[in-house]
């Protein structure tokens, strides 16, 4: 006990460090190792070393991978762009006191804390072409019914809509916290100078809120690039490969095709990509840091 007390730094962090090494660093190294091999996971046949050929195949002979990368970015762009716009609108709408302020803030939390698989199921029913609520609504408005997830040209967009529904509240709450932290003085000065509400928004709120907007956008983008639950439960990447992203392709390659070497090379590329985006985020934040 005395020893533990004298080396308190080590005592306190060692369990976490061992856990992270065993559960994160060793697996990443093992995945890198597998990415240089061909293996089906069989205990009887050892992984066969093939050098960088998995990577070479990924970038030159696997069109499914390139498509998945493009779709991942399209999905993220649509979802995060809409979440930012709508989130900013909602933040401005519920900023300041009104009756039921706390209730509203609580209720809009629900989409982002609810279990993603259950959300996927609920939206599958909403999107159902024949008995779904959305087509019933369209018919009632005299509009043509949609195929939603059934059509390969629109399925990705409708999946993004679910992500937008789920995560716009987070964007709104982050921006709301940012709005609450804005200084009063510039607004008073602008009011004295006779600036309109729109001018105050464009010339004061947006620039002052900019660091928060960037931080929230990057944070959401990192998560949106990794989206798995909604896509896999609702379409499994289909119809065809129309909604297949890097994450679902990696999963299918590893756990449905058991091409562990191939999948590992894809996952290492994915890992590097996400880490790159995150480093950009951390550097950016250091520059603007204090405002967050």
């Amino acid at each position, binding site marked *: 006990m005395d020893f533990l007390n004298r080396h308190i730094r080590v*005592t306190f962090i060692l369990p*976490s460090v061992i*856990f992270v090494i065993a559960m994160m660093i060793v697996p990443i190294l093992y995945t890198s190792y597998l990415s240089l091999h061909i293996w089906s996971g069989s205990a009887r046949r050892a992984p066969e070393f093939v050098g960088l050929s998995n990577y070479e195949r990924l970038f030159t002979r696997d069109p499914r991978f390139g498509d998945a990368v493009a779709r991942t970015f399209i999905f993220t762009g649509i979802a995060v762009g809409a979440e930012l716009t709508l989130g900013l609108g909602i933040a401005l709408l519920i900023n300041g006191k009104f009756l039921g302020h706390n209730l509203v803030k609580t209720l*809009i939390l629900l989409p982002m*804390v609810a279990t993603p698989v259950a959300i996927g*199921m*609920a939206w599958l029913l909403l999107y159902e072409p024949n008995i779904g609520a959305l087509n*019933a609504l369209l018919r009632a408005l005299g509009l043509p019914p949609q195929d939603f997830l059934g059509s390969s040209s629109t399925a990705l967009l409708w999946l993004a809509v679910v992500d937008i529904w789920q995560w716009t509240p987070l964007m709104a709450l982050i921006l709301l*916290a940012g709005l609450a932290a804005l200084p009063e003085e510039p607004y008073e000065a602008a009011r004295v100078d006779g600036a309109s509400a729109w001018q105050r928004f464009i010339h004061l709120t947006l620039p002052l809120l900019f660091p928060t907007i960037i931080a929230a956008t990057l944070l959401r983008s990192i998560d949106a690039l990794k989206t798995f639950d909604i896509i896999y439960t609702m379409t499994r990447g289909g119809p065809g490969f129309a909604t297949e992203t890097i994450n679902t392709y990696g999963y299918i390659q590893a756990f449905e095709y058991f091409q562990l070497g191939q999948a590992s090379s894809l996952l290492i590329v994915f890992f590097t990509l996400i880490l790159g985006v995150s480093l950009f985020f951390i550097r950016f934040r250091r520059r603007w840091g204090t405002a967050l």
Partner: protein
Amino acid sequence: MTTNYAVHVPQSALNVYAQQRRQRQALLGALRYAAIAFVLFIFLAPFLWMLLSSFKTQVDITNTRNILAFTPTLENYRNVFQQHEFLRYLLNSFAVAALSTLFSLILGLPAAYAIARFRLQWLGVILLTARIVPGITFLIPWYIIFSRLGLIGTLTPLILSHMLVGLPFIAWIMIAFYEDLPIELEEAAKIDGATPIGAFLRVALPLSMPGVITAGIVAFIFSWNNFMFSLVLADDRTRTLPIAIFNFLTYASVDWGGLMAAAVVITLPVLIITLFVQRYIVRGLIAGATKG
């Protein structure tokens, strides 16, 4: 008297002006409430639809013309619990979420304290990385290692993998918490003869209880909602609810009532927790965006 009269005229003109202003503001206020109500409706409607459908027979679900004309039935819930070993999956989910949260707290609290007090930023960055790296990067090694160890079919791989989600969040929230906690109290305790570990356990830990609750709840919800890790690491007996529901879809894709009942069962605990501890959850979820 004349002075009074002279003042009276412009006053009434002012009143008219003020009245117009009040009317305009009342109109704007009403519009704002209508907009807020619309936003709330969008975020809550899928939940309401899910709940409504879970009390409908298959025939009532297919009738989209009159959505409220149906006799509520509990048949879907009865089926779910009888046919699909749901109780076992519910217990699995609860055990995994509770135990992974508990162990994450045991590892994460001392680590967060040490990072905050001894400025061990490098460890903070590593834990942050665990939050950022795509979880699928670890899945192939985990699956292989846990299979070799004969642990697939026990709850151990699920608890360990969910800890990798919970631990970074707990550390993240708590580092910020301990940084804000004045060090003087711990120093006073040390002067009174407390050891460093004693100072943490008897002074810092009790003072940080609100943060611990926040962190614990967020970790619990993340584990409860987790889909991808459980999909790979659970077998027939150790399945958690999200996997059970997902399989339910593939086997009985047309039983929408049952599916929605299952979705309600899994979502309800999370929604109830959220309603009660809303304030903490917002802080927990946006901790990453507003604090480092």
